[in-house]
């Protein structure tokens, strides 16, 4: 699938997200929208998966370490055929398996996440398992930038470099905001690129909403002997003009008017499943 088509579909998934969150009355709108182009590029253009056989041993592994961005993840899994899109109606409803953070009872979800700082360690284990098993699949881990304050991330960063896991890609959704405000005011992350480099990673920075650049990055990974880190610069709540860049939308649901304003901004008529 080409970058333009992925960008178009990403906006449809954004419409899924705001619809899910509006129906549920709660959800992590901001981070789900900032990471949606990255997720869409991965699911529509990069990951080697078999939705009808979710545990196919040679599948690429994807981990949503920033588990609170679950809405976009679920919308993509549904659209790719891991479960019926109509099930998105049950998001955050009592008893549903589509809950507020990823759980691996949902086909396509590898492991439960939600507490921050866990995903990269698990990703190191998957990539190391592939190396030791001479398996060709890659492992991709999407993290939030605020999440990088968790010490376990840096334990995993050391291990990934130590084991020279060039089959591991860490992606940072660098939207610059966390629940209390800007990442730099909460706990400064910069110089982030230098930190990852110092830990032994092959670091690239890109526009996290440029599907063409993202596709080129993932398909062009060449460096051997080092794990890869993509710092993807994004805008929190991307696609909703009234919410973009506002930390209040980290965990906030649109009302009905905002939902329709969102559809208009996304150039989407609505969602078929709702």
């Amino acid at each position, binding site marked *: 699938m080409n970058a333009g088509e992925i960008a178009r579909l990403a906006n449809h998934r954004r419409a899924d997200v705001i619809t899910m969150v509006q129906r549920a009355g709660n959800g992590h709108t901001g981070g789900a929208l900032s990471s949606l182009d990255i997720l869409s590029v991965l699911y529509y253009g990069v990951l080697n998966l078999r939705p009808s056989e979710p545990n196919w*041993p040679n599948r690429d592994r994807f981990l949503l370490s920033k588990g609170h961005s679950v809405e976009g993840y679920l919308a993509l899994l549904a659209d790719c055929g891991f479960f019926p899109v109509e099930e998105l109606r049950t998001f955050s409803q009592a008893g549903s398996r589509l809950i507020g953070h990823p759980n691996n009872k949902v086909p396509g979800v590898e492991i439960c996440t939600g*507490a921050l700082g866990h995903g990269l360690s698990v990703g190191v*284990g998957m*990539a190391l*398992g592939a190396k*030791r098993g001479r398996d060709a699949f890659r*492992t991709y881990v999407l993290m939030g930038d605020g999440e990088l304050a968790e010490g*376990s991330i840096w*334990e*995993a960063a050391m291990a990934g470099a130590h084991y020279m896991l060039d089959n591991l890609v860490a992606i940072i959704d660098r939207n610059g905001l966390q629940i209390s405000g800007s990442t730099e005011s909460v706990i400064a992350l910069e110089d982030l690129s230098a930190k990852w480099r110092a830990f032994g990673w092959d670091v690239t920075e890109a526009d996290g909403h440029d599907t063409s650049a993202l596709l080129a990055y993932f398909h062009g990974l060449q460096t051997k002997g080092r794990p890869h880190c993509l710092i993807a610069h994004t805008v929190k709540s991307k696609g909703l003009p009234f919410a973009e860049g506002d930390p209040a939308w980290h965990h906030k649901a649109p009302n009905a008017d905002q939902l329709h304003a969102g559809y208009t901004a996304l150039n989407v008529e609505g969602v078929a499943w709702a």
Partner: protein
Amino acid sequence: MSKQSARIAFTRTLSMLARKDPRLFALATDSRGSAALDDFARELPEQFVECGIAEQNAIGIAAGLANTGKKPFICGPACFYSLRSSEQIKIDLAYSNSNVKIIGVSGGVSYGALGASHHATQDVALMRAIPGLTVVLPADGNQTEALTRGLASHIGPVYVRMGRGEVPDVYEKDPPFTLGKANVLRRGSDVSLIACGEMVYFTLETAKLLAQNGIEATVIDMHTLKPLDEEVILDAAAAGAVVSIEEHNIHGGLGSAIASLLAQRRPTFMRILGLPDEVLYTGTSAQVFNHYGLTPQGIAQAAKELLKVRKDEPVYYCAGSEHFSQ
């Protein structure tokens, strides 16, 4: 009486199994020495992963390896795994149902002289409260060997706690072992003694002391703390007096598990013997046990006191508890 260290028995068995099964992995956290994994690491480097002093990361790595079809055993001090990485155990292993075995070595007060930082005396309470996790405390080296063989084919997350030093054999070689099925080692009708881990041997010795005083005790090895073998405990309560013995804080461990069951199903006079809820006396584990009466003499004394209390207490009726009619 022969003695052996459970952790040595574990590593010996794991190495033997791993030579035949390339999916069996051992992970360490700079704990090759404490977990006795040096030989494994040398002989099977492709099945060994050193994670450094990073217990949280190590549990996550184990979960990732399990996702790729490996069967990881992560081996290091119980005090660090059970607390430092308890969230990873909860989410990456138990919630996610990852096929990972945690081997917590030097548990309880094995590191008694090193101070409270190195005591693992809350681990059972923590691990028991995590849904989906199996919790096991083997009694000796022979049982550890049988347990390790069982774990290699068991699917699902398990927390195992064992001690550091040599302990007397409770079992002959190749004892029968089933997860969740307690072993009744001795039968007596006056009092039931239920123990786990290194306390099982002391408890058998206790029964001998009590027999000299005309008191016949049932002795049960409750090696699996979760899932708990409820039937064997309910049967044991028929004696009318139950003493639990564990190398653990008196809160949340074996005694609490038994008391919770009996209070709801078959109220029974009980004593919970373990380590008090305080910063513990330090010394070798034998010295710590002596200090707190976790010895055959101390356990026997507690059992006798319980039998006396039971005799002196007024009889009362308790619905569903047929054995209270004296």
